[in-house]
């Protein structure tokens, strides 16, 4: 289990490969489920040209670790998971978040991935500020389960 908050652009697919290569459980991984969230160039009908992600460093790290521990408790078959979340300045198409879960069979990995992204979106203290044509605006709330 690992979670990282990072300030520069990352390649989620490379990080999945790297994590898997470094895991001593890799030979038990029968299923890998992933979610990658990337920055759109539109929101609520407005063009978005850039984004800044602010966070509460100590609390975000604590919550990402806590969510992974909660997922492991709910899905004991979960063998490993990796969360990476960007902060700082982003451009359209930049990856924002990666969640990857591994298990011997697909169900635990798929369900834990889905649960983790929803839990992260409602609990982890990150905030998006979008640059639109009429200036920078805070995103007021996340869409519910879209």
């Amino acid at each position, binding site marked *: 289990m690992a979670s990282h908050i990072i300030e520069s652009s990352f390649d989620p697919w490379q990080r999945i490969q790297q994590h898997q290569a470094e895991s001593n459980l890799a030979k038990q991984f029968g299923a890998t489920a992933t979610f990658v969230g990337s920055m759109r160039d539109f929101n609520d009908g407005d063009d978005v040209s850039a984004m800044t992600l602010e966070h*509460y460093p100590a*609390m975000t790290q*604590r919550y990402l670790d806590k969510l992974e521990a909660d997922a492991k408790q709910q899905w004991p078959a979960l063998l490993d998971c990796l969360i990476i*979340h960007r902060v700082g300045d982003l451009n359209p198409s930049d990856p*924002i978040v990666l969640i990857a879960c591994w298990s011997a069979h697909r169900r635990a990995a798929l369900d834990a991935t889905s649960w983790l992204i929803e839990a992260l979106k409602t609990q982890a203290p990150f905030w*998006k500020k979008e640059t639109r044509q009429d200036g920078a605006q*805070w995103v007021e709330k996340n869409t519910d389960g879209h």
Partner: protein
Amino acid sequence: MQETINHMSIQVKFFASLREKVGMEELSIDAAVTAGEAWNIATDNAEAPDNMLVAVNLDYAQLNTAVFDGDEVAFFPPVTGG
């Protein structure tokens, strides 16, 4: 040698739109009994938004959660990561 504690203090932090609204990022207050009282002291009784979230020592809390010397209290809007 024993260390002498001279005064009590509670660290108060604000994030995102709420940080901009109150015009402060962080300050130290002498004392408060609850998180809500810390808000009132730190912001000079500013009106707290209905959807405001509260954390005490990095865990979600309520305005009536008790706070103690050395605690960290944070106020922020709904989270929008992911």
